[in-house]
């Protein structure tokens, strides 16, 4: 019983730590919307 309680405690702490890290993760300033556009080689430009 004591062992099970310890396992549950460890899992709980790990879950809480994981949740904190996930929520407090660093945000990035990379573009969030848009799409890819093919670039025309300079020699093919009209």
């Amino acid at each position, binding site marked *: 019983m004591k062992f099970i309680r310890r396992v549950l405690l460890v899992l709980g702490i790990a879950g809480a730590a994981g949740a904190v890290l996930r929520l407090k993760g660093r945000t990035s300033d990379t*573009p969030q*919307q848009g799409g*890819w556009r*093919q*670039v025309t*080689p*300079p020699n*093919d430009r009209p």
Partner: protein
Amino acid sequence: MIGVVGAGVTGARIVDQLCAAKEDQVLLYDLLPLVASRIASFRRDEPTRVSVVEASELNSTPVVILACTAPHVDFARELLGAGVSVVSLSDDVTDVLQLLELNKIAKQERKTLIVGAASSPGMSGLLLRHLAATFDAIDEVHVALHGTGGPDCARQHHRALGGQSIGWHDGDWIRRPAGSGRELCWFPAPIGAYDCYRAEVPDPLLLKRAAPELRRVTARVSATRRDRFTARLPMLAPPHPEGGMGGLRIEVRGTRNGSRHSSIAGVAERVAQVAGVVAATTAQAISSGTLTTPGAFVLGESELPNEELLSRILAAGVRLHEFVGA
């Protein structure tokens, strides 16, 4: 006449590109002459003469492409000493650093040594220079690579995820465990989004050399959970003969008209194909006299004709994409 060392997947793509660009003669050397002979026999009907030779016969060519397994440094030293320019596709950190130390020999011999002329590094340096031209000043570059070329490239990818990544951060080289630092990176279609992680790849070292003004440089490679879990073990299964569609993505940040700006460019193509076209185009530029600066260089350095090289690479069929978004 151009020499090629290595008749693997990338070596075959290099020979293809040299044939397509109508090079008059290609001398091909591999430790396994049968493999080299097979590649040469497939190109028997091409106008370009592809001959299988011994290593010593490469000394008669003006430029040799090293597309064999790393390390390349001993081969490159020998070739430079014999008065031959060298284009290396090595993506091993130690090997790349040792190759750059051959700068003195290359200058003494008045020959050119291009280090890391593949997809990443290589194409990444050219794209850095291409994007940097649209900025007033650049200070950050972040590179991500998806996919692998041949089996040796896949083994290198495996080793890279088990080592120590190198990054340039505000004036210091920082080391972090490879496989950490997950970032979701979007590649051009049909690749899409992949989780990418830090890895022991030479891109930051070479990009910093190409653009010394940079304050932050990182490089990541895509990986699955299994890749990361098994990275520190021997490869559990033999790699594929060739990886599927690959992608390269480079994000440059800096200032334009007084405000912060970022530009992203990408390529979606088989990694060995991009590496082959970049290496062959660079070697032809040396052979034809377009690139004559003596010394050891990385693609993207201001002394090189980067726009001319990129233009030829795009003309060879590699499609460049730019991210348009906000």
